[in-house]
């Protein structure tokens, strides 16, 4: 156990009396009970009847969250040092460090990835329940429709806010970006050390939402629709608030890391594509996450105080507008890092310089900028025709900078010595899927088609092709690609190919049929449907179960490979970005001395003979 401290003299070793996670849970529980009792027995005029009220549960949750963050390590590492108390920083050793406060960006990255994976499978389980219900055209699995819709909401909320927004930014971003820019740490390690623990808190809050009653708004938390339901929506707002604050903190940290922690010689022209992707998506987060957080606070006040922001007395449509103002950039928050990963992996697998690199960067930046101009296409059913035109136009236009990414990747593969590996295969699958999602998006941007297909399964298929097809497949590709970096081991190629084909068949089978099902009249948000739709729903459900098992297979394979995969040399792909110049797995300090960048990371004119562009006296 190593010990460092603020101040000069070393302190004797001191063991934590309790595991941080246990202590965090305990403090959270105590804080909740105390504050809830205070509000419901002392402040509330009903004096404890009922024991849990809307204000008491909201304030109790805030107290619990603070208790959780302090208990997990925020007390010794953030709060007390802020007030000038000198507290020893005890680095927890071994596997336990992944269940404690840590300022090591690699540990934080893995903590984020594990939380995201947990969220993915919980939300996936909800999806399986939904598909099971849709096996029959009548209610049979869920006792009443509200439960089904609540399950849809939990699925979407956890997928969007703890997986889509988190895995490639908080997870891979925290792990890789400092190394990619040649730094041993992120700019604000304490911020990420704390923010990562907001993710399990947020997921748990959303999962526990049924305890307060059902909510039927889906992942958007629509008001005033939510006002018709019991109180489950409170935990939706609070849970998502925790998740989005986490993403905001990570984005601030990673932006500062990319801007200010770059090593010598790492000019903007040489910045890795993934760092460009994280930079653009972080700027989106920095702008839009505070916006949606404020919206959720208003939604909460709408119900708890209550204030009439979004009721019939106030302005019912305003919540929708405020939500989608964030909601569509959210899609690009999810897929822009995926685009960047395509451009990271493919030149390595092609052993050819990245084609039209500048256009790839311009594409990422313009997608970021245009993403704020397309949001109202989610509300065509609530708009005048004249208002639809600009949003329809920009929605179609955003496909152009998106197309730049395809141009860069295809140009890179073109006439190269392209190698089909599990990561490159998954990237190709991801590109295919996103192409389907993107092209159907152009259809949906047309108001005439949009008004016909609104809230049908066609839309469900469209956004799943963009988000699962675009982001989750890329996440898998990235996990296989950087697996040797994480562990010094390689996956089993045969199992990897089987896993990739398995999820591709499951995914494309399920969601391509949903396009047809949507055109045939299958609506979203309904657990019952006309008899004539049952046959295809059964087929979709079978493909969905295949997909779920496929993801489980890939998870088990990756976990197995991390622990028992074949050992490989340091840089098996002969990639040139800086993270590959460190040991695999990286040491506590990734770089013994600051690296010096002297050339492009994507220059394969040498045929890949030299593995790194970093000459000099440094251990590259």
């Amino acid at each position, binding site marked *: 156990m190593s010990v460092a401290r603020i101040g000069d003299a070393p302190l004797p070793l001191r063991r934590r009396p309790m595991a941080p996670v246990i202590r965090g849970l305990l403090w959270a529980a105590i804080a909740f009970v105390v504050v809830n009792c205070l509000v419901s027995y002392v402040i509330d005029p009903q004096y404890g009847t009922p024991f849990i009220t809307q204000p008491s549960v909201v304030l109790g949750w805030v107290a619990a969250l603070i208790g959780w963050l302090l208990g997990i390590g925020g007390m010794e590492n953030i709060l007390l040092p802020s007030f000038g108390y000198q507290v020893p920083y005890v680095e927890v050793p071994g596997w336990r460090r992944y269940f404690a406060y840590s300022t090591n960006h690699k540990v934080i990255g893995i903590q984020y990835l594990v939380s995201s994976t947990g969220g993915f499978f919980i939300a996936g389980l909800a999806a399986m329940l939904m598909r099971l219900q849709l096996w029959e055209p009548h209610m049979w699995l869920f006792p009443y429709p509200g439960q089904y819709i609540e399950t849809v909401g939990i699925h979407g909320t956890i997928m969007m806010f703890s997986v889509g927004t988190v895995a490639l930014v908080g997870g891979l971003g925290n792990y890789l970006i400092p190394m990619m820019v040649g730094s041993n740490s992120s700019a604000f390690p304490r911020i990420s050390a704390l923010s990562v623990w907001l993710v399990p808190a947020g997921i748990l809050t959303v999962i526990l939402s049924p305890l307060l009653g059902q909510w039927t708004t889906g992942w958007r938390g629509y008001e005033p629709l939510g006002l018709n339901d019991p109180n489950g929506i409170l935990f939706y707002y609070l849970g998502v608030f925790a998740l989005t604050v986490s993403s905001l903190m990570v984005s*601030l940290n990673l932006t500062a890391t990319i801007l*200010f922690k770059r090593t010598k010689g790492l000019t903007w022209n040489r910045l890795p594509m993934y760092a460009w992707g994280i930079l653009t998506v972080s700027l989106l987060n920095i702008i839009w996450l505070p916006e949606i957080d404020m919206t959720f606070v208003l939604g909460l006040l709408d119900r708890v105080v209550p204030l009439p922001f979004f009721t019939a007395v106030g302005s019912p449509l305003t919540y929708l507008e405020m939500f989608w103002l964030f909601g569509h950039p959210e899609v690009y928050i999810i897929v822009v890092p995926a685009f960047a990963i395509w451009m990271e992996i493919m030149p390595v697998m092609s052993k050819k310089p990245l084609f039209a690199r500048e256009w790839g960067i311009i594409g990422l930046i313009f997608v970021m900028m245009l993403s704020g101009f397309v949001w109202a296409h989610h509300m065509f059913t609530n708009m005048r025709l004249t208002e639809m035109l600009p949003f329809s136009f920009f929605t179609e236009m955003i496909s152009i900078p998106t197309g730049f990414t395809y141009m860069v990747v295809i140009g890179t593969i073109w006439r190269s010595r392209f190698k089909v590996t599990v990561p490159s295969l998954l990237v190709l699958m991801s590109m295919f899927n996103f192409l389907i999602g993107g092209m159907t998006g152009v259809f949906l941007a047309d108001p005439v088609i949009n008004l016909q297909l609104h809230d049908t399964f066609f839309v469900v298929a469209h956004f799943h092709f963009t988000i699962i097809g675009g982001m989750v497949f890329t996440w898998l590709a990235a996990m296989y690609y950087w697996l040797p970096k994480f562990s010094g081991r390689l996956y089993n190629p045969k199992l990897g190919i089987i896993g990739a084909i398995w999820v591709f068949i499951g995914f494309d089978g399920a969601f391509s049929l949903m396009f047809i099902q949507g055109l045939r009249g299958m609506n979203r948000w309904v657990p019952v449907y006309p008899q004539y739709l049952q046959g295809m729903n059964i087929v979709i459900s079978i493909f969905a179960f295949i997909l779920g098992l496929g993801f489980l297979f890939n998870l088990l394979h990756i976990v197995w490979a991390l622990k028992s995969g074949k050992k490989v040399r340091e840089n098996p792909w002969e990639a040139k970005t800086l993270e590959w110049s460190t040991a695999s797995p990286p040491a506590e300090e990734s770089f013994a001395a600051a690296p010096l960048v002297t050339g492009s990371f994507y220059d394969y004119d040498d045929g890949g003979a030299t593995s790194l562009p970093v000459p000099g006296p440094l251990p590259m």
Partner: protein
Amino acid sequence: MAVLDLETRIEHKKLHSAFYLFLFSMSVPYFLMINLRYVMIGGFVPPLLDQTTGAVETVLAIASALTALLAYRRSKAENAAGYRLATRFTLSLGLVATVMQLYELWVHPLNPMSHYGETFLATIGLCVVMQLMGLLALWAASSRVGRMGMTDSLRHGYELVSIFWIFNVIAWVVMYIELYFL
């Protein structure tokens, strides 16, 4: 005052620049609330908003910003005692201003049937929450400088606390003009 080498000064400037990103992000909710107010109630100024009370709060807030600026300069000069004194003044003035804002929220009849959306309440509430965070930071900085003194590595944290408070005051002044007059 210690003379810093160029590299350290660059590092400090980077730290400050990163903090301005945070402030930019924190300004988004204010922009949202200004727009929300115009969407929901146009230029209506609720009669319950007392301009005089608001003016007193604003004067106190501006005074606290001036003392925060003084603290910032003391920090730059590595004057621990001066920083602590100025920060305590900031803390006191800011606390009174915030308590007055809380009082405004407390006495207001929360009307779920108001056609005006009561957006001003949420906006004042936003200012209060941000100021409470700022007060906590000021308290922490004041305690920290008392316990740990003013060193070159520590002083940037102190400076950022002062900047954060000044940001809060600027936000409040804009909101005061917007909510109480326009």
